[in-house]
């Protein structure tokens, strides 16, 4: 603390990482959300990483109960929620205990001293207060009595009886937000109006929160505790209208977009499971788009209902996470066998078994590719960022409708809950899905009968004839069928032919894909990083870091995991070293090695967290130029 009078000076930064941490009850997610919006309005590029404890509330003050929200914002475009935070707001000892380790050396720690009671210290596993003694000497410690600040600011309304002490105390997250907003020169007006509308019903609470917010800001301004404030100028983002969006929301919107762009009603049958449930909640609100949401009795019924709806002509979608997908595998085989278009979303979480429901992982790739009985190939598509979930959903729908097949769409817990700014697309520019299919209404055989498995030459898709269409009555099912007529067939050669055909259909999808997009600014790279799904951000950031260090590295992120793009084998063959980082034990690596016989190097991490860019850069450096190379 400087004891000499001095006006705090404003320091310009290119980017900053702030982490709010506190008890589940402290409203850190909300503070983080608001700080994110303010930051977005300030025109920065940003990425967030919420991290909350497993479903059930842990006891207040304990380590298990700590909830945190990290925001990375910059005047450049960025790809990750950031590695080590510059600023940590710790609302109680447990939050400090859990997150101090992550903080940048010399970083700023703001602690709510009021919460550092013996009881709380003990719950957090501190023998003595870390505020005394050496624990924090390497950091810039700011001791702020956030709770009492808040209560003092709200004395009047409390006396007036507009709100009770408990309610007043709950405003302390706004006090913290106000202080941090001041530190980073973030206007709070929008948050004020947001608070007013959120608490319309109880103006007293609204006012209290606004007062607390301002109290926080003023504390920064008036006390001289803070020597500096910071400013991160607006990023040069592509012009357009933006909003922040999480992966689950983007995925839900993508499905609605697919419905609108295909003209097919969206049928969404699902059974709740973390972290996929929010897609159901989101869609349940959009009934005015003609969306039918069905909360089934279990995951099998959910996909069953979706197969029925697809047969009836809906854009049919189900979603779950690993354990629920396991239950759907038999029915996915039926959908594949009956060649009906539907999308099966897997918002992957930490496995195996019940695993780590609230953590992220990419370990269901092989399940998506091979987790069915028999030779049952289906396309697999992955989303690579929160906003990309929107496009990935459209692409999954496009493939399902064009080729009449179930499609696995992979997201994960990180994408599902993190947010990033999203430039709103122009509706007319979205793929026109009405071109992907036409319902069959006329018999397709000379003899005037209908053969439900007589295929389209180009796509190998079978005709989609809807119940209600006279003259097209037909029966489908899970037994092997005669190609063309679709009648049950036990003929050995037919089974061989059909099996090959079902593989050929998937291969056909690949043949009709646009070329792979490889990022290689210098064009001189001889090291390639291959990724899929949510690792794109970290990989992109890591490559960026390496390039600034003069390393020529190229990267390609796979949208399609099945089929593998036909050009991929050639591509991999062209590099000296190929590295594949995954949040699993090497699932894509296995596929790539088998298909290309290239010695692809795995870099695996299953900690329930996304990769840190710096860690990844180091690993790639090692494979490409270190001893490991």
């Amino acid at each position, binding site marked *: 603390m400087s004891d000499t009078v001095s006006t705090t000076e404003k320091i310009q930064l290119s980017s900053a990482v702030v982490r709010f941490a506190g008890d589940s009850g402290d409203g850190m997610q909300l503070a983080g959300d608001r700080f994110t919006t303010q930051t977005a309005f300030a025109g920065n590029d940003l990425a967030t990483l919420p991290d909350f404890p497993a479903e059930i509330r842990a006891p207040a003050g304990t380590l298990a109960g700590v909830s945190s929200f990290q925001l990375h914002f910059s005047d450049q475009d960025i790809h990750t929620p950031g590695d080590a935070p510059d600023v940590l707001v710790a609302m109680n000892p447990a939050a400090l205990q859990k997150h101090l380790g992550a903080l940048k050396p010399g970083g700023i720690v703001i602690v709510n001293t009021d919460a550092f009671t013996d009881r709380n210290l003990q719950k957090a596993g501190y023998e003595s207060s870390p505020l005394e003694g050496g624990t924090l000497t390497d950091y810039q410690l700011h001791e702020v009595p956030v709770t009492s600040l808040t209560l003092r600011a709200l004395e009047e309304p409390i006396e007036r009886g507009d709100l009770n002490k408990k309610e007043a105390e709950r405003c302390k997250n706004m006090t913290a937000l106000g202080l941090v907003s001041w530190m980073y020169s973030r206007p709070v007006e929008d948050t004020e109006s947001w608070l007013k509308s959120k608490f319309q019903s109880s103006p007293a609470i609204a006012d209290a929160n606004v007062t607390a917010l301002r109290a926080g800001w003023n504390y920064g301004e008036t006390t001289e505790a803070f020597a500096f404030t910071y400013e991160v100028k607006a990023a040069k983002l592509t012009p357009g209208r933006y909003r922040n969006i999480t992966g689950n929301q983007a995925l839900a919107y993508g499905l609605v977009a697919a419905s609108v762009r295909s003209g097919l009603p969206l049928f969404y049958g699902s059974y709740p499971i973390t972290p996929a449930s929010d897609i159901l909640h989101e869609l349940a609100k959009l009934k005015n*788009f003609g969306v039918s949401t069905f909360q089934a009795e279990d995951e099998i019924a959910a996909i*069953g209902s979706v*197969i*029925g709806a697809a047969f009836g002509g809906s854009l049919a979608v189900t979603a779950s996470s690993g354990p629920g997908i396991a239950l759907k595998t038999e029915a996915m085989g039926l959908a594949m066998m009956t060649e009906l278009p539907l999308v099966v979303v897997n918002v992957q979480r930490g496995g195996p078994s019940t695993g780590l429901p609230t953590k992220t992982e990419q370990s269901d790739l092989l399940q998506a590719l091979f987790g069915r009985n028999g030779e049952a190939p289906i396309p697999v598509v992955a989303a690579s960022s929160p906003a990309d979930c929107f496009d990935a959903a459209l692409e999954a729908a496009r493939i399902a409708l064009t080729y009449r097949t179930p499609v696995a769409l992979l997201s994960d817990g990180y994408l599902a809950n993190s947010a990033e700014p999203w430039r709103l697309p122009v509706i007319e520019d979205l793929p026109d899905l009405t071109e992907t299919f036409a319902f069959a209404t006329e018999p397709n055989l000379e003899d005037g009968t209908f053969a439900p498995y007589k295929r389209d030459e180009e796509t190998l898709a079978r005709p989609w004839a809807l119940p209600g269409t006279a003259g097209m009555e037909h029966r489908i099912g899970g037994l092997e069928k005669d190609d063309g007529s679709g009648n049950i067939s036990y003929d050995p050669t037919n089974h061989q032919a059909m099996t090959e055909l079902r593989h050929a259909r998937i291969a056909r999808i690949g043949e009709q894909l646009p070329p792979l997009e490889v990022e290689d600014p210098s064009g001189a790279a001889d090291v390639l990083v291959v990724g899929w799904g949510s690792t794109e951000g970290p990989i992109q950031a890591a490559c960026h870091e390496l390039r600034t260090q003069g390393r020529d590295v190229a990267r390609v992120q796979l949208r399609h995991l099945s089929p593998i793009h036909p050009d991929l084998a050639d591509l991999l063959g062209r590099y000296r070293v190929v590295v594949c980082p995954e949040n699993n034990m090497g699932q894509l690596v296995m596929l790539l090695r088998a298909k290309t016989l290239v010695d692809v190097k795995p870099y695996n991490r299953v900690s329930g967290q996304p990769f840190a860019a710096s860690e990844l850069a180091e690993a790639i450096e090692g494979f490409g130029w270190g001893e490991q190379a």
Partner: protein
Amino acid sequence: MTTNETKLTKKDFTSDREVRWCPGCGDYAILATVQSLLAEVGARPESTVFISGIGCSSRFPYYMDTYGIHSIHGRAPALATGLAIARPDLDVWVITGDGDGLSIGGNHLMHALRRNVNLNILLFNNEIYGLTKGQYSPTSPLGSIHKSTPMGSLDRPINPVSLALGVEATYVARSIDTDRKHLTEVLRGAYEHRGSSFVEIYQNCNIFNDGAFAAIKEPGQKEHNQIRLNAGQPITFGPEGERAVVAEADGSMSIVSTEEAGDRVVIHDPAREEPTTAFALSRLALNPTGPTPIGIFRDVARPVYDDDLRSQIEQARKDQGEGELAALLDSGNVWDVL
């Protein structure tokens, strides 16, 4: 129900597939009855869908010249629910067996019934797993000796009608494969009922469980054992109607001689709001080896899940207006970068 256009015949509901049940199987009779009924009530092949699971009985859809799905074991009610929600214009039938519908598929059946989705569910009960060559099923009598139970089965059978009533199914009936007239009437009721209809059909598997229903099928026995439920009629049975069903003080039902019953004899009313009475009747026989009620146990009008789901969509459209994609994306906190 679909409107009647040109009058169709049984043939119009008969597919070109060769029927492949064992000679003598009860499934043949049921198939013929359903085909005739559909023609008679003026159903349209193109608006009719049969969805089945796996089992001998579940081959049924292949023999109907309608739309159909031979799905996977036990899941037909789930597929049918999705289709019924998506397509109010269709008549959706579910064909299942005692194994398919009560063993692996029991949960889906139960939930479809409680939701009262607009489906007609026919359960072919042969008290055996036919397709897998003769293991005991959830309806096999206690002590049944079959391939997997050489010393006799140990679990008490499910009474499908009791189960359906336990989850408040709105149309619950029972009939017999070869009793064409009775089966037709019961199926007609199911067809006309909006919401879930559940019909248990006693079906003889002459290969693995022959004669399981002799007591209520064979001349000489059936006269004594069939308790035919007729709406508005007193529940009496026997060659001369000499036996009657009465309710005891504790709500249970028992069988006494008709004169002893006097005016205590229960008058059958399938329209009772509460399933209690129907449940009591279903308890008169656990397996059809003695006096057993057949006919329509319950037939009440209740809100239909898929109808209500569609009305919510209409309501939402009224309240919020038809969804606008651009507006949806452009909602919440947005900002412009110039």
